[in-house]
């Protein structure tokens, strides 16, 4: 079991999301940077889709109520375990009673904590993810507060060695700010000029950005149609409302929507945009669906490599 001893402003249980309930309006949800959560899971010796904690907006502390193995991934933060510094993307052992403290997040937006065994909350509609607007999933459908205790599941494999570290070249290149996109379902409704604007100018993540979507500031695009009859979108869909400022849909985005969809972020690059804070910039680059799926498969194989190396380190 682990207990929240000082709660950050945002802390929820997330896993890889709900993949089979979209037709009743249930968003995919799950970790907004699911690659970072999977990495932390691999380092903690978990299945990649185990539930962990998604952490943002400030510092806090977690107490381990039992001997535990854990890892941090995603956003960078000053972290300590009983006063000792905790490096990112590293397997660490904690003794029962020890406290993990995260100070202010220094770069990136969402930090992930995975603990060996995974966070054991009830499965709702196929997932342990917290869906805050619907107040379900995770721990009582809400953000975690001081004093909340969470049970851990049964470990599924041997624990990686204490101090096992993941090579940087297996992680997404968060610092580049280049986000690849494929053509959206309404790409042909947009003229040449809008496409040039989207792929040649810089966009800034605005303050109006959360797990539902990131509103982008920069050169507006022409919206040729206003709204269309609603159809499905997905995390990464770039839609263009009437004001011409694009919105990148994120994990908790509505399942359907009527704004034209100009492009879709390559899943392999979704972490890059997800980890951008308000005021930070990105650039879009158009690729084919074949290239996009290839980069996703490479990312999946990198995760598999991290898992394999972590498990081998225990010998």
């Amino acid at each position, binding site marked *: 079991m682990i207990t929240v001893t000082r709660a950050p402003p945002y802390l929820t249980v997330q896993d890889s999301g709900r*993949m089979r309930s*979209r037709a009743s*309006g249930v*968003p995919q949800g799950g970790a907004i940077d699911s690659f970072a959560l999977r990495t932390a899971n691999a380092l903690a010796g978990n299945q990649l889709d185990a539930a962990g904690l998604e952490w943002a907006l400030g510092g806090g502390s977690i107490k381990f109520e039992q001997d535990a193995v854990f890892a941090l991934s995603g956003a960078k933060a000053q972290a300590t375990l009983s006063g000792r510094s905790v490096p990112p993307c590293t397997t660490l052992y904690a003794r029962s009673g020890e406290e993990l403290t995260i100070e202010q997040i220094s770069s990136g937006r969402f930090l992930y904590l995975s603990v060996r065994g995974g966070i054991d909350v009830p499965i709702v509609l196929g997932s342990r993810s917290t869906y805050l*607007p*619907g107040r379900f999933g995770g721990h009582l459908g809400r953000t975690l507060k001081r004093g909340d205790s969470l049970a851990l599941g049964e470990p599924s494999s041997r624990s990686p060695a204490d101090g096992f570290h993941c090579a940087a070249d297996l992680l997404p290149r968060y610092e580049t700010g280049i986000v690849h996109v494929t053509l*959206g379902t309404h790409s042909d409704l947009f003229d040449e000029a809008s496409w040039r604007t989207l792929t040649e100018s810089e966009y800034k993540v605005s303050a109006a950005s959360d797990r539902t979507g990131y509103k982008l500031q920069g050169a507006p695009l022409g919206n040729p149609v206003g709204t269309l009859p*609603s159809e499905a979108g*997905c995390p990464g869909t770039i839609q263009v409302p009437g004001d011409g400022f694009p919105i990148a849909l994120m994990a908790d985005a509505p399942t359907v929507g009527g704004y034209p969809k100009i492009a879709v972020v390559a*899943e392999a690059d979704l972490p890059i945009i997800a980890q951008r804070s308000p005021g930070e910039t990105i650039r879009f680059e158009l690729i084919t669906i074949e290239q996009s799926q290839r980069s996703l498969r490479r990312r999946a194989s990198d995760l598999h490599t991290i898992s394999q190396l972590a498990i081998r380190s225990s010998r």
Partner: protein
Amino acid sequence: MNSKGLRAHSLGDSAVTIAFGRERSSDLLERIHATAQSLEAAKIPHVEDIVPAYLALTVFYDPLHASYDEMAKKLLDACERPTQLPGDGAEPRNHVIPVYYDGLDLDAVAAATGLSTGDVISRHSARAYTVDLLGFVPGFAYLSELDPSLHLPRRPEPRPRVLAGSVAIASAQTAVYPLDTPGGWHIIGRTGTVMFDPARDPPALLRAGDTVRFEPVA
């Protein structure tokens, strides 16, 4: 494009959207629902989720085990030979939802339509609506078709928070907000009926094709 005028398009790495047409109609929507049920029944490997909509249906799949090209081809083939026809699906159910017609926008809707609030209420509660589809947030059902005298565009500025149970209208449609969410529709009333409960099976009260009547509560 295939022989039936269907077009496939990628929606990112994990989904294919099949477009059926450009003009919205109840016939097209029924055909899309029937095709979605056919795909469901076909149990195509690596397909994870199917989301029908007005002009298209979208199929989510596992891109680590199937490429876009393979999936698009398979789906177009399957959509061309649906095993279900419109009307073959589950028997539609009829729902009655009690409504307190005291919504924030009731007076504004009356003013904008040139009707009395009493007329707005009687016209909204006079007809049976059909569930077109579920989407947006869990359990949100798009209901058609509203009395033409009540058609209004969405509010120019969406409200940051519309309360669960709000009964609202926009364009030719009406809906009940299942949970607190931002929303741009005109709120004319509220209901205590629970539209979505994750602990219920199925969690959503309404299903595409069902009919809904609203009953005024004094």
